[in-house]
């Protein structure tokens, strides 16, 4: 399980943000909050799932 724990945590956060997003949309029609939440989710995906850091550091088991 050890290798995968980061991923699991991130997925849970993403799921939570999706739920938040859904309820925010019920309360307001403004795009601003929704796009902010989307941007936050995007950053999480880019950083933890897509390992953008490997572009400038040689990490990644190689």
């Amino acid at each position, binding site marked *: 399980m050890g*290798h*995968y724990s980061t*991923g*699991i945590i*991130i*997925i849970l956060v*993403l*799921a939570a943000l*999706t739920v938040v*997003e*859904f309820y*925010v*949309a019920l309360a307001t*029609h403004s*795009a601003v909050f*929704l*796009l902010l*939440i*989307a941007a936050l*989710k*995007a950053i999480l*995906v*880019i950083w933890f*799932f*897509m*390992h*953008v850091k*490997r*572009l400038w550091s*040689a990490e*990644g*088991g*190689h």
Partner: protein
Amino acid sequence: MAVATKSLHGAVAAHDDHAGHEDYATRLRLNRLGMWLFFISEAFLFGALLATRFYLWGDTRPELDQMVGLIVTSVLLLSSASMYVADTAAEHGQWRVFSVAAWTTMILGLVFFLGVVIFEWGLFPQIYEGHLTPWGDKYGAVVFAMTGMHALHVLSGIVLIFIMWRLARKKHFTPEKHWGIEAAAIYWHYVDLVWIFFYPALYLIGTAHH
């Protein structure tokens, strides 16, 4: 000079000692950069579609089935998790885990795709009666354009994962050298990333038009 180099127009040149020898680490750096440049480029493709959506719809949106939206979004999110597991498993040489996770991703991806085609597009009215058509109005046109372009990427992602799964079965990859799997994984996450923006743009932002 020691090396037998002939002109471009002449015969085959010596292969050994020239400026172009590269090791795996160099190639990997290039491949990663290339992949990310591709993502940057594609961001403009999806950005153009988003711009189209906001230009034509403004602060309105079509009346879509919220349940369908939430379910397909969750399915895609789950597939990102399984892809993460597959990628990490390959890194640690756990090939059984990799195989199961890769198949999970492919199946979830397919479920997402079918969800879009059956419930958003209403292609199979026997199962689900959709009310949008691509030629009906600006809502139908843009929904089909955005989900269509995204679905195309989902499908190609599934094909990519399948290729990598097959290569992995042939012992093509090692924990040190598995760029193909990494590429498929970050591509898959990218497709998910696009949906992170498409979901609110299609389902949540603006007031539903009746």
